[in-house]
């Protein structure tokens, strides 16, 4: 009777199609990225093997490191904003009236495409007619910032819609974890005379630390590979003020047709993301002990 559930043809039929898709469209491309990185290649025509030239160039490429720095800044910024999200979700999860409605409102930007968000925020940041500068003028501020057009401000301006996009996502996940904290523990602490802050800081936050760690990894890896919104909003400009790793790769490959060098950048992105995940896992485990 067990034979039915170990029917080999059925297993192959059920697993193989998905497995082949994942192998051919995810794993083989990943291996090829590293391989193409060894080539001088314009995407069409012959590849020329040039050994580690592209990778050597990458290590000395100021623009690559500048883009990486921008991605790392975004990662730091995203991790820091988790603190704000945690405060909001602690309030929401304290069984406050209307908490569910607030939660539903917060998530709405997450449902939009990065392209729509980018286009909307281009208008919001518009120096002449945008929402923000109109508001600033109403308060009598004459010298309104140029936002995306100012090389010193563009990167931080781009971070704002990214936070706007993801805030609700992190909040609902933290909230889901917080409402699962056993009520008895909170009651016990309250009877012992703990106030709301102490309960939040000493009981709730430590109890959801597992979820918080996952969110830190999500925030860092998500930031390192961040692309769509920045590419649409600024194209990495002005100059390279908002260039990030993925946008640099994309422009090298599909803009300048340096497929070999683009692949080397793509491989660098892979190593960085995987490395960051591994490092954070190690670091957070150490902190726990």
């Amino acid at each position, binding site marked *: 009777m067990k034979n039915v*559930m170990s029917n080999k043809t059925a297993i192959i039929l059920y697993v193989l199609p998905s497995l082949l898709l994942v192998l051919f469209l*995810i794993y083989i491309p990943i291996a090829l990225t590293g391989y193409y990185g060894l080539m001088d290649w314009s995407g069409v025509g012959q590849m020329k093997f040039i050994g580690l030239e592209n990778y050597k160039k990458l290590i000395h490429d100021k623009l690559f490191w500048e883009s990486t720095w921008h991605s790392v800044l975004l990662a730091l910024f995203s991790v820091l904003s988790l603190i704000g999200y945690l405060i909001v979700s602690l309030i929401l999860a304290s069984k406050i009236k209307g908490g569910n409605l607030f939660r539903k409102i917060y998530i709405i930007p997450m449902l939009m495409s990065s*392209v729509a968000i980018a286009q909307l925020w281009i208008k919001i940041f518009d120096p002449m007619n945008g929402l923000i500068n109109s508001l600033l003028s109403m308060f009598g501020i004459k010298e309104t910032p140029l936002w995306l057009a100012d090389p010193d401000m563009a990167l931080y301006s781009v971070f704002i819609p990214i936070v706007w996009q993801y805030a609700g996502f992190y909040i609902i996940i933290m909230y889901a974890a917080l409402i699962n904290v056993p009520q008895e523990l909170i009651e016990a602490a309250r009877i012992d005379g703990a106030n709301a802050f102490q309960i939040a800081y000493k009981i709730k936050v430590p109890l959801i630390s597992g979820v918080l760690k996952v969110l830190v990894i999500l925030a860092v890896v998500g930031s390192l590979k961040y692309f769509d919104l920045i590419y649409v909003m600024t194209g990495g400009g002005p100059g390279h003020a908002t260039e990030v790793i993925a946008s640099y790769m994309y422009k090298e490959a599909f803009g300048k047709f340096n497929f070999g060098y683009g692949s080397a950048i793509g491989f660098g992105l892979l190593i960085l993301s995987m490395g960051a995940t591994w490092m954070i896992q190690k670091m957070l485990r150490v902190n726990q002990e």
Partner: protein
Amino acid sequence: MKEKKILDSKPRSPLRQIAMGILYFILVVVALLQLYPLVWLFLLSLKTNQEVFGMSPFALPKSPRWENYINAWFDGGINQYFFNSVWYTIVAVVLTLILASFVTFALTRMEWKFKGVVLALFMIAYMIPLHSTLIPLFNIYNKMNLIDNPVSIILSYTTFNLPITIMILLGFYQSLPREIEEAAVMDGCSVHRIFFRITLPMTAPVLATTAIINMIYNWNEFVFVNTFISSEKWKTITVGVNNFVGQYLTDWGAIGATLVISILPILIVYLFLSDRIIEGLVAGSVKG
């Protein structure tokens, strides 16, 4: 959800009321920040250029210009993009759900070697940054003559959504009682019959959740279409909107209308199924 207000369980002191006031103030400010840009966008989509450039951005449109929507839909070619998005999304969601259900069934119900390896392959695939696969994918599709062909888009959507869909399904399959399936085995049912007639119908709730999550991802996807598709007739709304904005730079009303059209389908679904969407977003993230 139980609305038992713990803060009310003690007698109200003025201090407690002030504290509650501050908490609500924070929540309302965040809600305004999240919502107001969209209200502004909607107002923008109904304005004339004179109203956009000459008047306060907080002013309501004098007479709402619904023509903006009609112009975007027909003259801007948004209708073509929109229908492409609809059918790519549906086909890819159906494929992903069927394939992921097959795999999850085999992983949780059937007996075979290499289960662990296969599961690991799907889990690790979830962590690989999509952008690192883009150049080789382009080359592979190019060799197969699938560039500027919707097949490349549907294959990419299906494949890249498989890992997260399997992850969400796994949790549900593991919690599902097996007695009915075991009884069916005793009765001499074939595997396929058990899968299609018993297991698959029982997973309907989680299939609904994953379908919505997949739908949101596919509808909003940008980079695959932007890279693999070049003709207008195959573009999706996400990429189409981007091109539209490039062409109608100064017509803010039309741009606003286009953006509203592009986000409306998801917002409508959200209006009816918000709990399910939230549940899916949570399930898809934390198990990673």
